[in-house]
């Protein structure tokens, strides 16, 4: 008979508690935030942390609370920003997609100071006399950024890191991984960019690199929009003024100015 008591006691308790919980979940049901669910639905869900939040869920919560910017997600790009704007009912800002650029074209064309045979890592190599390249600014090409990139968008070609702009999500994981700090975020829709970081004078630079910017000011003269200028022996672009005509890229004696139109096919100018 006691076995029935045990069964009854436990069964009864289980049933009662189950009912109680079911009732409570109805009673205390926290109405799920519709927007939060919708936001979570469109976010990529890879939890890369590129937005600065602990994951897509946290980012969605911050968006809903109005703390995060709609273009905060580096992975989703413009499409995502558009969707997020639609859900949140805010005006979309254009041209927010970022990519990165390795501001060096040296590689094999930049001379070596010595033959480096240490650990295959940029950070390790700069411990020895600032790295194996004569140029103190340039890419070492040992691929610290390649390993830092979560999207496989970077490869080392001819001793210099190259970005696959279609794969790049602009998360900027590589920016901090470069000991020379020559990977910089640039607008994806930027039309021209300078692929050199050397502030050395022309004569000095000529001795160490066959391609670096000499600061010859040809681009400055050729630009009718006054968007490109030489600062500290290096060309720089004012994206506010640049129209992307590509004249500077054409005239650059070193072919250093990357014409994005050539690189990425038809220009996707917006706004």
């Amino acid at each position, binding site marked *: 008979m*006691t076995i029935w008591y045990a069964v009854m*006691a436990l069964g009864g308790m289980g049933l009662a*508690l189950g009912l109680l*919980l079911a009732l409570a979940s109805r009673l*205390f*049901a926290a109405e799920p935030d519709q927007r939060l669910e919708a936001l979570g639905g469109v976010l990529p869900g890879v939890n890369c942390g590129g937005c600065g939040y602990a994951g897509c869920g946290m980012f969605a919560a911050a968006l809903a609370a109005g703390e995060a910017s709609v273009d905060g997600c580096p992975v989703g790009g413009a499409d995502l920003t558009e969707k997020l704007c639609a859900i949140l009912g805010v005006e979309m800002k254009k041209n927010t997609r970022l990519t990165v650029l390795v501001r060096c074209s040296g590689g094999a064309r930049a001379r070596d100071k010595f033959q480096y045979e240490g650990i295959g890592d940029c950070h390790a190599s700069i411990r020895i006399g600032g790295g194996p390249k004569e140029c103190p600014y340039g890419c070492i090409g040992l691929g610290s950024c390649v390993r830092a990139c979560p999207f496989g968008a970077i490869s080392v070609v001819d001793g210099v890191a190259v970005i696959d702009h279609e794969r790049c999500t602009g998360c900027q994981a590589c920016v901090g991984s470069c000991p020379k700090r020559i990977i910089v975020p640039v607008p994806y829709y930027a039309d021209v960019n300078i692929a050199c970081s050397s502030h050395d004078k022309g004569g000095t630079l000529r001795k160490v690199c066959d391609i670096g910017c000499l600061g010859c000011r040809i681009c400055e003269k050729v630009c009718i929009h006054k968007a490109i200028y030489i600062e500290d022996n290096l060309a720089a672009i004012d994206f506010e003024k640049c129209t992307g005509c590509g004249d500077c890229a054409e005239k650059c004696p070193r072919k250093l100015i990357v014409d994005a139109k050539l690189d990425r096919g038809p220009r996707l100018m917006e706004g």
Partner: protein
Amino acid sequence: MTWQGLITMSLGAILIENFVLVRFLGICPFLGVSKKTDTALGMSMAVIFVMTAASAATWAVQEYILIPLGVEYMQTVAFILVIAALVQLVEMFLQKAVPALYKSLGIYLPLITTNCAVLGVAIINADNGGGFFESVLFAFLSGVGFAFALLLFSSIRQRLEFAEYPEAFEGFPIALVTAGLLALAFTGFTGLKIF
């Protein structure tokens, strides 16, 4: 209950028969969430809360269901059932009613649902056969004892981060050695009597 009794019980629950370091109950959170003092504090609060609430519920179950039906041997199952349901209920209630508290307790609340320290206090209470007030008080004090041990341990571990010890001891080994030494220290309280 007299003041004497209260002090004796506090001493017993917190020092002499400390849940973690003497009875070796609740070792999992003791090792798991003792890396930082603030998470340890969150866990401690959750444990004190759940222990107190659970002992109240299990006392009622023991007294009004298990004993009258003569099925005290089903204690373990019944208690786990009640504690799990109770914590779930409390969690739902907090989420709706006191979201701030719900957030601060966070993941620790569901984590300790099936913790042996919580079940342990319920079973020790049932074995002692004390009254309702006594059981709840004992559970609360045991929770305080757990919190005391956890906070001690976590502050030691935080300082250990900067200490130099052999590489082989890095991480859990040194934590286990520390826990052992701490437990050894607590055995010093055995036989402590004031009255």
